[in-house]
């Protein structure tokens, strides 16, 4: 060992010792301040310093563990709270929706055209609020990080029947065609979390209906690359401007001033601009049209399923969302 090496080792040793002294002083100072002691009382010998350092580090580790436990328990409490709130909100929402639809139907006597329009707004907003409540709960579940997929074989047709049951009346009410096309190579039984696959499809279809003033919404299911199942939802709706496409899956996306074409800003709801009947851009989104959680949830679920999502859209000419999921039954699963 030459003298340069000895100098380097000595230097490193001194630096390490200085750092230890400095760290202990800081921690002692911190503790002394916490106990309102004078800093002088905290001066200790070298051995005492090291013992104190170990004890302080142990205490910090314990505190960190306690903080993590508290954070997990808080997240759990948040989800439980949201579940409770969601349950409590859904019952009065049923009354509002039911009574407004009975008014619309004329159970309590005939309504004028204006009164009918007003009643339909109440019903639409109630449906929207219900969707938000469900989305917020799902987002909280996803944020907890311990979201588990329930994998099992499921019948694709059952998922399609459920989708039609909810979405066909919505499409019919807007005068839209809702079409389903299942390619013959797609097997009737798939393997995955059926409820989440339904949710992905439902969010995409509901979104497409919402932002399509006229024309059609089409769902195509086919096999991609011979190994994965592709679910494609296309619409003839308002489309998504290019500059918003990279952010369309962000939760609570807000449009900036000018990005919606009329310069007023303040809009939200997945950033899709609303058009009037002739297809020209008419107005920005009203907050009642959503916080854009639906597509964010779709992206998170697709990612959990090791799938991918693609978007092709042109402003004013409709959108095509393609979700590709590994839900075809493999030879190992069928064995």
């Amino acid at each position, binding site marked *: 060992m030459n003298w340069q090496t000895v100098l380097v080792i000595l230097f490193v040793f001194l630096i390490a010792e200085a750092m230890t002294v400095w760290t202990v002083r800081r921690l002692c100072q911190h503790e002394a301040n916490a106990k309102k002691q004078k800093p002088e009382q905290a001066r200790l010998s070298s051995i005492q310093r090291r013992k104190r350092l170990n004890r302080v580090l142990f205490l910090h580790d314990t505190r960190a563990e306690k903080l993590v436990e508290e954070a997990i328990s808080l997240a759990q409490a948040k989800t439980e709270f949201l579940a409770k709130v*969601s*349950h*409590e909100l*859904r*019952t009065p*929402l*049923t*009354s*509002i*929706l*039911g*009574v407004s*639809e*009975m008014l619309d*139907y004329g*159970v309590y006597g005939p309504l004028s055209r204006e009164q009918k329009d007003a009643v339909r707004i109440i*019903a639409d907003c*109630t*449906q929207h609020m*219900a969707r938000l409540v*469900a989305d917020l709960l799902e987002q909280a579940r996803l944020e907890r990080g311990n979201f588990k997929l329930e994998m099992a074989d499921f019948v694709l047709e059952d998922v399609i029947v459920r989708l039609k049951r909810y979405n066909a*009346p919505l499409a019919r009410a807007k005068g839209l065609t809702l079409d389903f096309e299942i390619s013959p190579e797609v097997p009737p039984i798939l393997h995955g979390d059926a*409820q989440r696959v339904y949710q992905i499809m439902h969010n995409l279809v509901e979104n497409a209906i919402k932002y399509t003033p006229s024309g059609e919404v089409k769902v195509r299911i086919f096999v991609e690359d011979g190994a994965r199942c592709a679910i494609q939802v296309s619409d003839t709706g308002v489309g998504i401007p290019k500059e918003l496409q990279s952010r369309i899956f962000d939760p609570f996306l807000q449009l900036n001033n000018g990005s919606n074409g009329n310069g007023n800003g303040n809009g939200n709801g997945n950033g899709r601009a609303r058009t009037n009947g002739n297809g020209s851009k008419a107005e920005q989104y009203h907050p009642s049209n959503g916080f854009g959680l639906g597509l964010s949830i779709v992206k998170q679920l697709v990612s959990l399923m090791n799938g991918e999502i693609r978007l092709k859209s042109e402003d004013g000419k409709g959108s095509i969302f393609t979700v590709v999921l590994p839900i075809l039954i493999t030879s190992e699963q069928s064995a």
Partner: protein
Amino acid sequence: MSSPIALIIEDDETIGEIFTIALKEAQYDPIYLRNGREALERLSLLQPNLVVLDLHLPRLPGAMILRAIRSDTRLSRTQIIVVSADEALAEDLRGDADAVLIKPVGFYQVRDLAHQMKMARSDIE
């Protein structure tokens, strides 16, 4: 010909009224009950064609009523629509129900579904 009987078991009175009118519109003869125990007693005397069942009920949970109907051979032809705000519980019971609706549920939705179920049953018969 008399209308088919529909039993509505729901603790919220406003929702009970909405379902009653919706089922009348679907050409049923609805009977509205507010608690689970009473519903079970009536089920021992009646053979309803349709039961619209809430899950969180006073005195006896809806899940127990669902199981009681499904285990009673006398009620083997009774169709059941579970209507609940508790999505997780309702999904767990989907296998025993003919249909599951998650609240909020509209007047039109209940009327149309009940009507479809009646038509499907009469097609089979």
